[in-house]
């Protein structure tokens, strides 16, 4: 099982952009993430496959930036293959991974 957050990715990012900016970046993500999750759900509910793919793509992209491999993979599966045969489980996996990643990212900025 991969880590929720790969510390080395965040360390590299911090070195590249500075500690204060990393905090700002994480706070931005934490503020935007519920909206992306809502877009994902809305895309599925309304049958908007483009919207669904874009929301999944966006989450995947940010998850990779912050070194959150579980979230990145869960989002990527929706991006390339949609919600599949059991949409609730697929969307639930993303929501769980996002919650876990958010907790870990919050810990990082409060540390």
């Amino acid at each position, binding site marked *: 099982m991969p880590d929720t957050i790969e510390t080395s990715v965040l360390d590299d990012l911090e070195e*590249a952009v500075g500690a204060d900016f990393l905090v700002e970046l994480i706070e*931005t993500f934490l503020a935007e993430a519920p909206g992306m999750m809502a877009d994902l759900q809305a895309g599925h509910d309304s049958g908007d496959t483009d919207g669904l*793919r874009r929301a999944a793509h*966006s989450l995947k992209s940010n998850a990779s930036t912050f070194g959150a491999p579980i979230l990145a993979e869960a989002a990527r599966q929706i991006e390339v293959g949609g919600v599949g045969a059991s949409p609730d489980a697929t969307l639930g996996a993303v929501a769980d991974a996002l919650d876990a990643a958010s907790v870990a990212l919050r810990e990082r900025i409060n540390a």
Partner: protein
Amino acid sequence: MHDAPARLLIVDDNRVNRLLLSRSVELLGYQATVAENGRVAMELMARERFDLLLLDIEMPEMDGFEVLEAISCDPSLSDMPVIVTSSVEGVDNIVRCIDLGAEDYLPKPVNQVLLKARLGSSIEKKRLRDEQKVLLRRFATSEVAEDLQTSGFALGGTRVNASILFCDIRGFTAISENQPPEETIELLNVYYTLMFEAIDSHGGIVSLMVGDGLMALFGAPKPLDEPARCAVSAAHDMIEMMEHFNVERQAMSKPDIRIGVGIATGEVVAGYAGTDQRATYTCIGDKVNLAARLEAHTKVAGHSVLIDDATQAALNGSPQSTSLGTTAFKGFSDPVEVFSV
């Protein structure tokens, strides 16, 4: 030499990505502007000049592919380097970006070292292209420069319907003999500036400058709706400009400068002539010879602007012209009817 930092436009619908990319390029010394989708980016590019575009693919309203297509269709943007930054899935999507004209592709999350290298190289290449363009425009007209950039260089010509204008200063040799050479150069510079402006503002290009004589083309390399009318309007502007210039010269007790203009219209062959190393955009045909003869004939006829029958016919009576009868010109088997306009 290039003190101002390069201006980058970052196009991404994701706020975290916009923030991170802006910060990354600013740390590299560039100036960043952001747009949240392709449509906003196109609006910004219509108003402001950017040196490079960092473009995401997956975006609402107008995606990255559509932006690449729009840029390639817009001559004012087509030489702007675009680096696609995306975590889009599938090699075929990356290939599509490159096919649509993207200079490079950087996968997200963007590696800072790679970003620095790619930006540096793209911006330097753009700077060299811009410099080349400036040089090209100094030695060729903007139309010829544009033609060279879009169609490339190839010796050879195409048949076009054009008007040819010849112009020179009456008694230039006598004028230049009676004043220091520095003053003659100064006079020529003012004269050329005025003539170029008149020709340029009516869609013509100057294809040849020899001493005080010049040859201009109307209708090549870019076709004009009414090349004859444009050439005649340019000639009238040239005469008017010289009159203003003479008022200034009179104030300095200098002799008036008179010019003569000859215009002929018809089919000519226009294109690049010379060698692969050194060539010029010019046109060839008996109408070119005729325009030169008409210009020389202004001295004899005592009129400043002389045109051939084809030019006169194309004017449809406005502005009015007066027939001066037919004249036999050297190199032409039949006499030619000459008009003053």
